[in-house]
């Protein structure tokens, strides 16, 4: 099969990835060495072993991509390696203060576990479309994961939020993995039922509102989010799950009314939470009046937020330099508040660079979604991109007092194994989607097309080798319509 007339076969671009990966590793390991130099630690064997582990893992991932997903996006891996390396360096730097000890080693270990798991997923899954079969299983798994922490004897209450599971001394946040399973469920559900939701509706002014019975799933997502909020006191994840669903349904149907309804639901949820959940009300008070001495001094008060703001201000344009600031003043400086530590020590230039990296990463996730041909893949990529961007928004927005602060961690940077594992698995899935998007397909001649030169046509959205038999039913048939308005000019 010939490729496009005006464009040659797409290039795998793995060499570009290798080059960028080298810069990424230099940044991560360089930052760590700089910390050591500045704090007058001897640069001994340990630094080189840790650096070597990072190089080895990154190269292993790169080779896995060369072998299994040759056409995958070449920019995702370098960006993620940069962020992860900077995170380890900052956690390492905070280990020199007397609040923390040995967290960097644990983070490096979790990085290794996560990357190996991501490589395994990449190699074993091979095609993201196979995840579609697990749509409903994913929902069950999500609910299970979300409610695991409240099982007596298993759950653990840390910092007022009940999101931890502890088994034999190892703690884990199962809610982090629920991000992935919920994204799979939403994508699968909407890929199947999109037309039903799209066709019916009542038009009010410029907006077309969906029928009441189609609101059901939205309502269910809202209930899950609210349940997470009330049962686990976890504001951040509640916001993220609901935002994820609204974003995916908006992309699936391209109807702005869903966003309007979603915002209304969030408003109602926020009012309910403010009324009935002490934890949420506390966060609102901190957000609105952080400089009130009473709120500043109370237990669970605004001390953390205010010190974070001071830390960001202290950083200035170029920062104090790695190791020269005092980020340990802020509580949880190496997990929830790690953005503040970066703002202080790398300054505006460094922190804005990291935010731009997040932005590029998000745009690459969306690009994978735009490029892929199957409906499920599009929605899944968009959902996973939303998971990333909502995490960053909730964390950075909370720290900078744009929204109330809530316990989410910045992806790839913050100390915490479960979040790291979840985010690396997301990377593996998105890389598979982008591989499917850019890979050339070979198509045989068509049997039933008349007309001159009309051979070799393929349903461009369904693609080939879907690995599943799709019964041509009425809803299936029309579900192949392009959901994303690609390149709308």
């Amino acid at each position: 099969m010939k490729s496009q007339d005006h464009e040659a076969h797409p290039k795998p671009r793995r060499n570009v990835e290798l080059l960028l990966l080298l810069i990424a590793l230099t940044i991560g390991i360089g930052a760590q060495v700089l910390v050591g130099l500045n704090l007058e630690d001897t640069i001994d064997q340990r630094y080189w072993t840790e650096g070597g582990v990072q190089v080895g893992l990154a190269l292993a991932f790169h080779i896995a991509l060369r072998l299994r997903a040759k056409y995958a996006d070449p920019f995702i891996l370098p960006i993620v390696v940069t962020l992860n390396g900077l995170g380890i360096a900052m956690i390492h730097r905070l280990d020199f203060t007397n609040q923390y000890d040995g967290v960097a080693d644990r983070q490096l270990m979790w990085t290794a576990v996560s990357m190996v798991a991501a490589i395994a997923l990449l190699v074993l899954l091979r095609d993201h479309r196979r995840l579609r079969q697990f749509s409903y299983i994913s929902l069950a798994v999500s609910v299970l994961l979300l409610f695991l922490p409240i099982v007596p004897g298993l759950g653990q209450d840390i910092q007022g939020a009940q999101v931890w599971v502890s088994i034999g001394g190892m703690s884990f946040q199962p809610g982090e993995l629920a991000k992935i399973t919920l994204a799979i469920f939403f994508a699968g559900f909407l890929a199947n039922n999109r037309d039903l939701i799209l066709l019916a509706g009542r038009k009010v002014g410029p907006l077309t509102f969906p029928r009441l019975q189609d609101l059901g799933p939205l309502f269910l997502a809202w209930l899950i989010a609210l349940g997470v909020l009330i049962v686990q006191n976890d504001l951040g994840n509640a916001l993220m799950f609901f935002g994820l669903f609204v974003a995916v349904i908006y992309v699936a149907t391209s109807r702005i009314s869903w966003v309007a309804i979603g915002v209304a639901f969030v408003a109602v949820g926020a009012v309910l939470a403010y009324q009935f959940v002490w934890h949420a009300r506390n966060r609102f008070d901190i957000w609105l009046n952080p400089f009130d001495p009473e709120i500043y001094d109370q237990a669970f008060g605004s001390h953390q937020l205010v010190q974070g703001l001071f830390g960001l201000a202290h950083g200035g344009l170029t920062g104090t330099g790695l190791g020269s600031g005092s980020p340990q003043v802020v509580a949880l400086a190496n997990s929830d508040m790690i953005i503040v530590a970066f703002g202080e020590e790398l300054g505006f230039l460094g922190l804005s660079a990291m935010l731009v990296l997040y932005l590029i990463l998000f745009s690459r996730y969306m690009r994978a979604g735009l490029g892929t041909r199957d409906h499920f893949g599009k929605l899944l990529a968009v959902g996973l991109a939303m998971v990333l961007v909502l995490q960053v928004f909730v964390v950075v927005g909370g720290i900078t007092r744009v929204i109330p602060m809530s316990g989410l961690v910045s992806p790839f940077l913050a100390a915490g194994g479960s979040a790291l594992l979840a985010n690396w698995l997301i990377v593996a899935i998105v890389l598979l989607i982008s591989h499917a998007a850019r890979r050339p397909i070979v198509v045989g001649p068509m049997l039933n097309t008349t007309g001159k030169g009309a051979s070799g046509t393929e349903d461009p959205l369904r693609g080939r080798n879907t690995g599943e038999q799709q019964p041509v039913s009425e809803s299936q048939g029309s579900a192949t319509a392009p959901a994303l308005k690609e390149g709308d000019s």
Partner: protein
Amino acid sequence: MSELAITVLQFGLLLLLWILILSIIAAQGRDMMVSKRARTRAPRNDAPASAPEAESTPATVHHSGKTPRPRPRRLVISEGPLVGTEIELGSIPIMLGRAQECTVVLDDDYSSGKHARLFPQGSRWFLEDLGSTNGTWLGDEQLTRASTVEPGDRIRIGKTVLELRT
């Protein structure tokens, strides 16, 4: 190590971060400029769906000609109970069948409720059978999968024959 050297290295780190960002943006090249490139190539082409294909999705539609032709704009019923009816085609998919919710309601005893679907892709319309009882015929062949419809091709559903016109 002297303080000056460390400061220089710190700035080097910030510089390297931005170098990474700039090289990523440079390497992306026109990958993200989906719509812009499509606009410069085909200024009058009002088919937005053609843009991403041209840029990224490789080898989905085989163009026989070098220049993209305008997409057919009318669907004409040339035989059958509704002969003479014309339907303006936009850029949204069209459902053909006997059911009332179809875009084109065929008053034809041999067609199924939701018989076939016609959807635009790039500069072409594709026809797809939706599991109808009596099948959809394009020219002399029965449809087994979605395929392109050229202007003048006879689409036969039951006793109705439809044609695309530009």
